């Protein structure tokens, strides 16, 4: 399996190269540049800035220069945040986003799996209906609605938790819950459906016939099979969650990297956008690999060697 993982990672290198190249040229196709803002600059000032950042060079030279620097581990300076390199910006924000996304992911898996399992075991009971209704609610209400409401109730009205910032556990509670809620709903629905199917499968029926306790059957046999769809879903979801939630980070004033995806593109901050694209691409590659490996662990029929 190790050989398989290494092969997959090596195979991702051309893919990353393609993504970087496509992103580099696609960004340059968009009209406007990093210094085209509401305050138009004097032509001489613009010329100085273009020269400072190498934007006066032919595009292929800029591309070659970017790739050359990237191979040396240098993502270049931000065109907008001029006191920082892209590595510094992402290096400061990424751990925060990973912390936020990781906790939300964990919460979503724990609560989602529990709720989904309970609903499956109590199929067509009021518990089942309640879980389905809550899950539907969680999926349909977007977190740009849920997050401000949570903040308003628990920070502004009740004063129990902070409304803004990141660092203390109190500051983490509301954003993690807000980010996890839709994922809880999705996981619960996926687990419920798969669990119902698993509980009807032959091997579970056999296990029941042998008189194994229900708890053992659920945890050891049914949940294992039922977790496969959730694992498939959580691969890309984890990549998205861990690389920052634009909405949640903005609403709670969290210093992650979420805002750079949108703001970087709007500002035509080429190097910063390239940095975020690379990070997301790497995360997607890694999490898809993890999903595939988990599949092999959970389903003995899947083998990669």
């Amino acid at each position, binding site marked *: 399996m190790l050989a398989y993982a290494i092969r997959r990672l090596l195979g991702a290198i051309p893919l990353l190269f393609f993504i970087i190249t496509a992103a580099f040229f696609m960004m340059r196709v968009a009209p406007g540049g990093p210094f085209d803002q509401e305050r138009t600059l004097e032509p001489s000032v613009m010329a100085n800035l273009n020269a400072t950042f190498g934007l006066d060079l032919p595009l292929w030279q800029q591309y070659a220069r970017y790739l050359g620097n990237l191979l040396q581990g240098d993502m270049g300076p931000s065109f907008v*945040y001029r006191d920082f390199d892209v590595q510094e910006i992402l290096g400061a924000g990424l751990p925060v986003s990973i912390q936020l996304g990781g906790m939300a992911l964990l919460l979503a898996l724990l609560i989602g799996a529990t709720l989904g399992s309970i609903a499956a075991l109590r199929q067509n009971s009021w518990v089942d209906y309640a879980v389905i209704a809550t899950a539907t609610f969680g999926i349909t209400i977007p977190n740009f609605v849920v997050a401000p409401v949570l903040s308003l109730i628990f920070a502004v009205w009740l004063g129990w938790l902070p409304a803004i910032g990141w660092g203390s556990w109190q500051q983490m509670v509301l954003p993690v819950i807000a980010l996890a809620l839709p994922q809880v709903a999705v996981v619960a629905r996926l687990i419920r459906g798969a669990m119902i199917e698993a509980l009807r499968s032959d091997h579970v029926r056999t296990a029941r016939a042998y008189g194994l306790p229900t708890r053992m059957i659920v945890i050891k046999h049914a949940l294992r099979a039922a977790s496969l769809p959730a694992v498939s879903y959580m691969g890309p979801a984890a990549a998205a969650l861990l690389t920052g939630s634009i909405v949640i980070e903005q609403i709670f*004033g969290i210093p992650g990297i979420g805002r750079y995806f949108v703001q970087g593109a709007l500002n035509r901050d080429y190097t910063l956008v390239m940095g975020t694209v690379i990070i997301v691409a790497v995360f997607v590659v890694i999490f898809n690999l993890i999903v595939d490996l988990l599949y092999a662990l959970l389903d003995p029929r899947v083998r990669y060697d």
Partner: protein
Amino acid sequence: MPRSILRTAALTSVLALTVGAAASAQTYFRGSDGDPETLDQHKTSTVVEANLLRDMFEGLVIYDSEANVIPGVATEWATSDDGTVWTFTLREEARWSNGDPVVAGDFVYSLQRIMDPATGAKYANILYPIQNAAAINSGEMEKEELGVRAIDDQTLEITLEGPTPFFLELLTHQTGLPVHPASVEEHGNDFVLPENHVSNGAYTLESFTLNDRIVLTKNEEFHAADSVEIERVEFLPFEDRATCVRGWEAGEVHSCSDLPAEDIPRLEAEYGDAVRIAPYLGVYYYGINSAREPFDDPRIRQALSMVIDRDFLAEEIFSGTMVPAYSWVPPGIGNYLGDDAPSYEWSDMSMLDREDAAIALMEEAGYGPDNPIEIEISYNTSENHRNAATAIADMWSILGVETTYNVRDASAHYAMLRDEKVHDVARAGWIGDYSDPQNFLFLNRADNPGFNYGNYDNPEYDGLLDQAGETTDLQERAQILGQAEEIFLADNPQIPLLYYSSRSLVSDALVGWEDNIQNVHPTRFMSISE
């Protein structure tokens, strides 16, 4: 939740914050509109940076809490008879935060640095009135040839290209702030890092965490340190205005520097005077491409301007946070005509009369419902801009105008305005960098294609601006600039729609926040009450 409970909760929170702040020796949690792009005063261009730099550095002159120009490092100044040579006397007790004296040579070094093309200064042109500045910034001359010299440590002489009566106003801009030469020489661009930072203002930089907070602490070397009451300022960036409001309501922030327009009626109802809406030195306008048919006909431009109900835009679209505009130069500006400043001749007419007159003008020009004009409004993406454009299109429909829209993000929109100029009508705005009418009127010069979105080309207008530039008597100059604005308003190449307002949310605990047209609020003049 009942309103009274909400109010009680908010007041309790503010009180808690006040007590907490008092306990931490006056920390001011200051909501900011976003992150600074840089803390290098020579590379900055945004209001966010201006607020930070104003706290950390002191220029030759500064703004007080009411945006009056008062002495800074310079205690007094004199000008030559022809208005081209300014001599500043620097205060002896001025010190950098590392204890070094602030001397005239520091300003020479700083002004040369901002004009050096290698610095890549976005706003170098603000100081182009200084002799040879433009040529140096374009790489045509050496920076040592800049018209600035230190006569001795306490005397600085600045020579200008021509008389520039608003030169003192220019020096209040962040581009006029000094850098500590030894730090720049030693650390290069890294002089802005907290561990290398040396400032000469009321505060020094303690830490800068992008997207999180910037912490300033009181500079004990500052010459007026005894009068500075707030010991520590934490600038908190809020890209989302509503987040700052919730932080304020939860008692975690003392002030928000901007507010979501749609939330203002609620905030005013809940918190009354804590909502500060004040006239701001800016104009929101539509540039009409007067170089294009049929917009080269001034009757059409005037008709388009007349039927726009600015009261509706201000009240309904911008929730009362903007002011209807009937002139190009915002009221309250310095060095101008005050109440005698020009405005549209028809500004006092009722909307019904204006509509009738506009329809007549369009008919005269050969257009109307039977022969409609098709107009494309270009604007940069924003809900308010979209709502305004939709409302204006509806107002124009009475003239038989058929409107389409071209919506792009800000970069694409302004790149089009600068390079292609293929618009019919384009939204734009201008916030004054300094309080002088020249800063608005120069936008429409024929030789200023970067800003002249109306493609206005009137030699008489340009001539009056040139004449004003040579006039040192401020009253006479104001009259000349007034004549220029009158011509501009009659020609209508750009339609002023609204004057901006600043909109802030300020805790009762914060003492010394004065509303002013520049929206400048130096922390050194504020305190936090217990």
